[in-house]
């Protein structure tokens, strides 16, 4: 279609040569060393079984659902697992909506092979009534941003989603022992899936007649590479799958070296995934305990607008000028973040950053907590690097620029470097709710209603 041809991106000869020459000198264009991963961020959604993974610029979302179906005839007491990959057109202008291209199918197959044939997910525990009903697990992977190395990112998203997924508990009853009763999650705690091991995919790219190889290629490196190999390995050192489809020929000694490197990386990534999942599980457990207090706090929660009213009352002229002065500083800081992100992009370090859990129930919804902070900051004479002025609401996210100030994950607003802001670890939000309870609240909504009714 002619409307798509305008959007194909072609790499210039200069760029290609530059990347290849730099690789000869062991330099990559984003500053990494040849065997460094980009920074991995794993976040979880509100529901069980939904994960968002960012590997450098690549962004993938995973979502797991389950339903009761009839099993296959030849496996009457095993559940089923199906992987669906969606190459959303938002990830890359060349991805078309509708039919998946060959790369999409290859990605789906590699992840599927890694999970199913290595028996990572325990299928027999998914059986409810042999031959009649079993659980069918469906994993949807949505590629949101194509920054290179989709296979690894999608694999991590699938694993994270499977580890945090909870299926409803069901009991078999009835007169002939064939009736299945699925219990509501509120009544009986849903159960996690049994995962025997975590197969992690590690992708290598080859350049220059197979002489040079790098791990975790970025988008531009993928456009230049001669060949690619993906090795799916678990932390025990078992090779679950290897995929090398065409491309440059590579000597077998190099392949063996790659596998050795891959097993080290796989162990590293496995520990990151486990840390993120553990953090999520503790949050979830706390959430269940806190549910009573959460409803109280939400009562206090006011839509953003009302805070604006009270803030306008409180904000002094000095605060406003302070905000104006800090604006350019904040903007330049955000620009610095953006450029830093593209150039250094980080090296796969195993910091504890990936235990950011956004959107776990209440906290991310609770703007009032941050409002609590901002109002208290007005009162206290503490100088902040970021803009303090609370003349407008939604300056909680400005606090994200301030390294010391924790922030409710991706809340609000235009951070040009949202990856950075999300790195700030989640703050305990309960103390703030009390402060907020004291504040006078103007119900602007009610005011509006009073005017109209």
């Amino acid at each position, binding site marked *: *279609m*002619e*409307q798509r041809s*305008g*959007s194909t991106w072609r790499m210039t000869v200069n760029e290609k040569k530059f990347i290849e020459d730099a690789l000869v000198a062991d330099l990559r264009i984003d500053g990494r060393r040849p065997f460094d991963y980009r920074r991995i961020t794993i976040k979880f*959604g*509100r*529901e069980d079984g*939904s994960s968002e993974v960012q590997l450098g*610029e690549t*962004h993938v979302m995973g*979502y797991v659902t389950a339903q009761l179906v009839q099993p296959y005839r030849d496996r009457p007491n095993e559940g089923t697992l199906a992987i669906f990959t*969606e190459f*959303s*057109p*938002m*990830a*890359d*202008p060349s991805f078309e909506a509708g039919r998946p291209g060959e790369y999409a199918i290859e990605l789906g197959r590699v992840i599927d092979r890694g999970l199913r044939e290595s028996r990572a997910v325990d299928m027999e525990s998914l059986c409810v009534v042999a031959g009649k009903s079993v659980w069918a697990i*469906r994993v*949807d992977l*949505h590629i*949101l*941003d*194509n*920054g290179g190395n989709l296979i690894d990112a999608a694999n991590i998203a699938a694993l994270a989603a499977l580890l945090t997924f909870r299926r409803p508990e069901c009991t078999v009853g009835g007169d002939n022992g064939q009736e299945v009763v699925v219990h509501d999650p509120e009544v009986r705690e849903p159960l996690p899936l049994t995962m025997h091991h975590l197969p992690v995919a590690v992708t290598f790219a080859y350049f220059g007649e197979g002489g040079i190889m790098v791990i975790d290629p970025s*988008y531009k490196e993928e456009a230049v590479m001669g060949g690619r190999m993906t090795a799916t390995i678990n932390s025990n050192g078992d090779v679950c799958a290897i995929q090398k489809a065409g491309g440059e020929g590579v000597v077998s000694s190099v392949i063996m070296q790659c596998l050795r490197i891959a097993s080290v990386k796989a162990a590293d990534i496995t520990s990151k995934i486990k840390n993120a999942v553990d953090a999520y599980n503790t949050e979830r457990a706390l959430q269940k305990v806190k549910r009573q207090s959460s*409803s109280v706090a*939400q*009562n206090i*929660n*006011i*839509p*953003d*607008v009302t805070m604006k009213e009270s803030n306008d009352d409180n904000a002094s002229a000095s605060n406003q000028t302070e905000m104006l002065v800090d*604006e350019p500083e904040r*903007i330049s800081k*955000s*620009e610095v973040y953006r450029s830093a992100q593209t150039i250094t992009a980080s090296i796969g370090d195993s910091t504890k950053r990936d235990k950011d859990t956004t*959107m776990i129930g209440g906290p*991310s*919804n609770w*703007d009032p907590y941050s409002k609590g902070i901002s109002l208290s900051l007005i009162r206290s004479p503490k100088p902040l690097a970021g803009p303090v002025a609370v003349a*407008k*609401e*939604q300056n909680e996210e400005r606090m994200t620029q301030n390294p010391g100030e924790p922030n409710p994950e991706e*809340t*609000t*607003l*235009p*951070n*040009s470097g*949202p990856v950075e802001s999300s790195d700030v670890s989640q703050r305990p939000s309960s103390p703030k709710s009390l402060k907020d309870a004291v504040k006078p609240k103007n119900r*602007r*909504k*009610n005011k*509006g*209603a009073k005017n*109209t*009714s």
Partner: protein
Amino acid sequence: MRAMGMDRLDGRNANQMRPLTCSRNLLHRAHGSARWSQGDTIVLAAVYGPKAGTRKGDDPEKASIEVIWKPKTGQIGKQEKEYEMILKRTLQSICLLTSHPNTTTSVIVQVVGDDGSLLPCAINASCAALVDAGIPLKHLAVAICCGLSETGSVILDPTKVEEQKMQAFMHLVFPNSPLAVLPEGSSSKHDEPFEHGIITSVTHGAMPERGYFNCLDRGRAASAAISEFLRRSLQKDGS
């Protein structure tokens, strides 16, 4: 203070919306992207700027907008096609179509979480993404969902559970309130303020006429608040 005596599950009163968050410029490949969340309903929208050529039937004198709606799970069915059509018509009315004739702008919407009020959340996200991409717009679109119960009371921004219990609910899209330099000048020109126009109204369920107009009034009041929030969040970045 309880208006209408309604006690909602999450503790809000009838006129309270869930907390809004909007973040832009999240994706690196897309020309513009925005993530809008209202409570647990989260939508990610991405925009790819004008590409050459329109689709076969479309008018080459104007730009055309293409919307792709991606649900969280499952096949694309009629519901998604309907959302695409509504979103496309809404965005067509806010974009300056004659500034880039014979081009196609793609808007891709990905549902990240659905807890009621999904279509308004998507419209808000798409509008923010269009701004992020720099597509010329006449004005912004602000969307809100109102529910009408059997007793005739209106609640704003219902959750999924509330939507199912309501007798009727509707999605309303209004233009955002303009910021005029001379406030007197703008109001004297029109009988009715500009922001009282309705861009889109989609209703589900049967409702009495007065109920519809009540919802409209409530929706307008709320849209003023949302448009303030949107303006502030778009101005924040400055870039």
